C-alpha cells in the first residue's frame, strides 16, 4: 500500500519522532509505515488521518492491491 505520510509530515514540518508522539506510537512504526514496510491497522490509519486533518483515502492508496 502506498501512502503520502512523508510528504504530509514534511508539509507540517514534523520529524518522525514528532509524528510518533502525536500518534502515540514509536518512531520506528512511523518510519516503517512511511517506507511501506508496514501497513497500519484501520484504527491507526484513522488516527493518522485525524492528525493531518485529511480523509483517509487521500493519505493511503491501495495501489495494485485494489
Amino acid at each position, binding site marked *: 500500500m502506498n501512502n503520502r505520510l*512523508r510528504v504530509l509530515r514534511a508539509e507540517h514540518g514534523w*520529524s*518522525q*519522532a514528532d509524528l510518533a508522539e502525536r500518534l*502515540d*506510537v*514509536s*518512531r*520506528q*512504526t512511523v*518510519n*516503517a509505515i512511511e*517506507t511501506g*514496510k*508496514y501497513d*497500519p*491497522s484501520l484504527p*491507526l490509519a484513522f488516527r493518522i488521518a485525524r492528525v493531518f486533518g485529511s480523509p483517509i483515502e487521500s493519505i493511503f492508496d491501495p495501489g495494485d492491491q485494489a
Partner: protein
Amino acid sequence: MNGKPMSKRGLLRWTGGIAVLLGVAALAAGMILTWPTLRDLGILGLVLGGVWLLFSLFTRDEPLRAPQRRYVREFFPAIVAYVVILFSVWPMLQHVHTNGLRVLIALLPVLPIVFVVRAMVRLVLASDELERRIQLQAISVASLSVGLVSLALGFMAAAGVVLLKNALVLVLPAMFAVYGIAVWWIRRGYDGGEP
C-alpha cells in the same frame, strides 16, 4: 526523574558498562579466591557487557518511550534480586535438610523472575501494533527453537547419548536470549534512518 530521559543507546552503555565492571571484579575475585564459578561468571559478565556496548554503537540515540522506561524500572530491580538470591540464599541449600525449607529456598529465585515476566508482559501490552507484531514473531521464534532443541536433547538424554544435569534451569534463560536476539533481528527489517 528530572532532565533528559534516558535513550536506548544510553541504557545499553550504562548496563553494558556495569556488566563489564562487575565482570572484571568477579573475574579478579574468582582468580584470587580460586573460585571457578565466580571466575566463569566474571567472564560471562565481560562478554555480555562487551556485546551490549557493541550493540550501543549501532543503536539510535532516541529517548525511551514511557512503556520502555517503566520496563527498565521494573526489570532491573527484579534481576538484581534474582542475582542476590542466587548468590546469597541458594547456597544455603547444602546446609538445609528439612524438605519444606529446601523447597522454599529452591523456588526462591523463581519469584523475581515472575516479576521479570510480568514486566515483559506489561511492556508487550503497552506497545504499539508494530512492536506487538515484532514481539509476537520473536516469542514464536524463541519458543519454537528452544522447544525443538529441548525435544532433541530430551530424546538424546533418553537414549543415554548425553547426560543432562540441571538442564531444565537453562530453558527459560535460553528462551530469553533467543527472544532478545530475535527482537533485534526482526526490528532491523523495519528500521531505517529518518530522511
